C-alpha cells in the first residue's frame, strides 16, 4: 500500500500532476490541505465569534449586492462599519430612525448620547467605503492564506502573486454576476427599474468565475501555470465547508427536526450510493469494457463515490499501480466541471418543487468535494429564484447547500471504511499481492480531516443557539398571532358604526400590544444571542462566499480538457460517460427523490 500512499492527493485534485513521478509527495511537503483547511476555517470562525463579546472583528468584510449602479454594489457586511446619513424621523433610546436620500427608512443603534440629536435634524455617520472594505478583505485573506501556504511549504512569492490574481479576477466575476440584468429575480425588477432579467441570482457569479477559469486553463496555459501555486480548489472549498458549519449549525438550531431529518436521510442516501453505484460500475467496466481489476476498481470508486480521494484510496486498497488512480482522477476532475455547468440548471428546471431532492442529487452526482458543494450552492440560488417566480414562496437560503454538503461529507467520511472493506475482500477473496495487508489505521488515514472542523463549528453554534432559538420560536409564533389580531381589530375600529364599542376595541389593541411587549421582554437575552449568532455567521459568510468563488474559478483553471484529450481518454472516458450519464446520475436522482421528496426548506421571514 506504501507505493500508492505516496501520491499527493492535493496535487492530483488540483491538476498539478499527471504521472506517478510528478504526483509523488515531495519530501519537503508540509501539512496536508485537509488539515490546513481545518485550521483556516476555525481561525475565521473564532474571529467571527467576537460579536458575542461585543467585538466586531470581521465586520469590515465585503458584502456585494445586486446592482445597476456599480457604486452602490459594495459595502462592509456589518452596520458598524457602514456609513449612514439622512434626516432623523424618530429617536427611541439609543436607536434612531432616519429617512435616507433614496426615501427609505433605516433604524440604527448609536453609541453617542442621543440628547444632542433631535427629530428633523441630520444624522451623518462616517463608515468605510465599499472599495476600502474589498481592499481590507483582500489584504486579510492574502495574509491568512500566505501563512497557510507557509505550512504547506508552498513557494510564498508565487503563491502571493497567484492568489492576488485569483482574488481580483474571481471577485470581478462575482461582481459581474450581481449585475441586476443577470441576477435580479422577478420580484426585484420594479425596484431596479429594469424590464427584464435572466433571474440567475447573484450566485451566477460562480458560473462566470468557472467559465473565466476554464478559458484561462485551456487557452492561456502560461497564465494558468503562473497561477498554479495558488490554484487550490480543494483547499478553498474545504475551508469554506468548515466556515459553513457555523451557518448550518445556526440553521439547525432554528429548525432542529429538519436538520436531523436531512442528516438521517443523507446517511441513507450514501449507503445506497456506495452499495449500488460501486457494484454496478465495477460490473459494467469488467464485463462490457473488459477492464482489468486494477483499472475497474479505482474507476468504480472514482465514478461512483468521491472522485479523486476514492480512486486513490481504492488504488491503495487493491495495490493498483499509482498511474491508475492518477489517470482516473484526472478524468473525474474534468467531468465534475461538466456536471457543475449542467446539473444545477437541470435541477432548476425539473426539481424546483423538490428543493432538497435537488440538493441531495448534487451531493450524490457531482464527484469532487468542490464540484458537489459548489453545485449545491448554485442550485440553492437557482431553485429559490424559480420558486419565488413560480409560486411566490421564498425559501430560506442555505438548506439546499446544506443537503448537498451533508450528503457529500457522509460520502467522504465513509471512503476510509470502504477502502478497508475492499482491501480485506481483495486480499481474502480476490487476489492478495505480496505484502498486502488491510490495516484498520487506514480508516483514520483516509478520514477527511476538515470534516472535524465542520462538525466543530456546526456543534458549537448549535449548542450556543439552540436554547435561545427554542425560547424565541414560540414567542415569535405568539407575537405573530397577536399582530394579526391587532390588524383585524384595527380594521374593525376603522369601519365601526357604533362609537360605544370603540373603547372596548381600543382596550383589546392595548392589551395585545402590552402582551407583545411583555413577551419581547421575556426573551431579550435570547434574542441578543440569536442576533449575535446571525451577525457572526453573516461576517464569516463573507469569507465562505469568497472561498466558494475561488473554488469555481480555480476548478476552471485546473481543468485542462485539451491535455486530457491529447493523452487519449478514449475507452476510459467512454465507460465514464456511459456510467455517469447513463445511470449514476439517474440512480442518484431516484435515491435523492426517495429519501428527500416532500421535505421542504423553511420559508424565509
Amino acid at each position, binding site marked *: 500500500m506504501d507505493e500508492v500512499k505516496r501520491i499527493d492527493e492535493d496535487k492530483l485534485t488540483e491538476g498539478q500532476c*499527471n*504521472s*506517478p*513521478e*510528478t504526483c509523488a509527495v515531495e519530501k519537503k511537503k508540509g501539512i496536508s490541505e485537509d488539515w490546513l483547511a481545518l485550521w483556516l476555517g476555525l481561525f475565521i470562525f473564532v474571529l467571527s465569534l467576537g460579536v458575542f463579546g461585543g467585538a466586531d472583528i470581521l465586520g469590515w468584510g465585503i458584502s456585494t449586492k445586486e446592482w445597476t449602479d456599480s457604486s452602490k454594489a459594495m459595502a462592509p457586511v456589518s452596520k458598524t462599519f457602514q456609513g449612514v446619513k439622512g434626516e432623523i424621523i424618530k429617536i427611541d433610546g439609543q436607536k434612531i430612525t432616519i429617512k435616507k436620500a433614496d426615501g427609505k427608512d433605516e433604524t440604527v443603534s448609536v453609541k453617542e448620547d442621543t440628547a444632542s440629536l433631535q427629530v428633523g435634524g441630520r444624522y451623518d455617520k462616517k463608515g468605510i467605503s465599499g472599495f476600502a472594505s474589498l481592499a481590507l478583505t483582500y489584504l486579510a485573506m492574502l495574509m491568512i492564506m500566505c501563512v497557510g501556504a507557509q505550512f504547506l511549504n508552498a513557494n510564498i512569492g508565487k503563491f502571493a502573486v497567484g492568489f492576488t490574481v485569483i482574488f481580483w479576477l474571481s471577485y470581478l466575476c462575482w461582481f459581474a454576476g450581481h449585475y441586476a440584468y443577470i441576477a435580479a429575480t422577478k420580484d426585484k425588477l420594479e425596484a431596479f427599474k429594469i424590464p427584464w432579467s435572466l433571474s440567475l441570482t447573484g450566485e451566477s457569479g460562480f458560473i462566470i468565475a468557472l467559465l473565466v477559469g476554464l478559458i484561462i486553463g485551456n487557452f492561456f496555459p502560461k497564465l494558468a501555470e503562473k497561477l498554479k501555486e495558488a490554484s487550490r480548489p480543494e483547499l478553498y472549498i474545504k475551508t469554506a465547508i468548515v466556515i459553513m458549519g457555523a451557518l448550518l449549525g445556526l440553521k439547525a438550531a432554528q429548525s432542529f*427536526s*429538519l436538520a*436531523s*431529518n436531512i442528516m*438521517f*436521510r443523507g446517511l*441513507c442516501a450514501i*449507503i*445506497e450510493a*456506495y*452499495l*449500488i453505484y*460501486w*457494484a*454496478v460500475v*465495477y*460490473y459494467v467496466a*469488467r*464485463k462490457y469494457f*473488459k*477492464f*482489468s*481489476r486494477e*483499472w475497474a476498481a479505482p474507476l468504480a470508486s472514482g465514478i461512483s463515490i468521491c472522485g479523486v480521494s476514492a480512486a486513490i484510496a481504492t488504488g491503495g486498497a487493491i495495490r493498483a499501480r499509482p*498511474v*491508475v488512480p492518477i*489517470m482516473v482522477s484526472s478524468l473525474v476532475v474534468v467531468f465534475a466541471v461538466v456536471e457543475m455547468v449542467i446539473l444545477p440548471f437541470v435541477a432548476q428546471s425539473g426539481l424546483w418543487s423538490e428543493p432538497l431532492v435537488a440538493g441531495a442529487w448534487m451531493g450524490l452526482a457531482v464527484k469532487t468535494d468542490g464540484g458537489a458543494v459548489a453545485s449545491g450552492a448554485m442550485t440553492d440560488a437557482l431553485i429559490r429564484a424559480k420558486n419565488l417566480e413560480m409560486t411566490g414562496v421564498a425559501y430560506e437560503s442555505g438548506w439546499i447547500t446544506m443537503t448537498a454538503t451533508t450528503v457529500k461529507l457522509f460520502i467522504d467520511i465513509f471512503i476510509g471504511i470502504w477502502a478497508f472493506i475492499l482491501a480485506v*475482500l481483495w486480499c481474502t*477473496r*480476490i487476489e492478495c499481492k505480496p505484502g498486502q495487508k488491510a490495516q484498520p489505521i487506514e480508516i483514520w488515514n483516509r478520514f477527511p480531516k476538515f470534516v472535524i472542523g465542520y462538525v466543530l463549528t456546526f456543534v458549537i453554534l448549535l449548542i450556543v443557539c439552540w436554547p435561545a432559538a427554542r425560547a424565541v420560536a414560540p414567542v415569535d409564533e405568539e407575537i405573530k398571532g397577536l399582530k394579526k389580531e391587532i390588524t383585524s381589530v384595527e380594521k374593525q375600529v376603522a369601519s365601526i358604526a357604533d362609537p360605544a364599542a370603540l373603547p372596548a376595541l381600543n382596550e383589546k389593541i392595548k392589551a395585545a400590544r402590552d402582551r407583545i411587549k411583555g413577551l419581547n421582554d421575556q426573551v431579550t437575552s435570547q434574542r441578543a444571542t440569536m442576533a449575535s449568532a446571525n451577525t457572526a455567521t453573516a461576517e464569516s459568510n463573507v469569507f465562505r462566499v469568497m472561498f466558494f468563488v475561488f473554488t469555481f474559478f480555480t476548478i476552471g483553471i485546473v481543468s485542462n480538457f485539451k491535455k*486530457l484529450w491529447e*493523452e*487519449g*481518454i*478514449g*475507452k*476510459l472516458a467512454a465507460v465514464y460517460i456511459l456510467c455517469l450519464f447513463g445511470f449514476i446520475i439517474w440512480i442518484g436522482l431516484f*435515491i435523492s427523490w*426517495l*429519501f*428527500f*421528496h*416532500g*421535505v*421542504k426548506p423553511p420559508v424565509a421571514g
Partner: protein
Amino acid sequence: MAEQPKLAEEMKKMEYEPLLPVEKKLVAWSVGLGLALLIFLYWVSSTFFPSGH
C-alpha cells in the same frame, strides 16, 4: 524525469482478465444488500423521520 505514461498506451497494455465468480458474487451481494437496505431505510425514514413522506 521519466517519460509520462500516456493514458491511451496504458489502456492498450491492459490485459484481459475474465470476470471471476467471486467478483460476480461481490457485485450481486453488494447490489442485493443495497436493495434490501433501500427498503429498510426507506421504512425507517418514513416511520421515524416522517416529514415529507
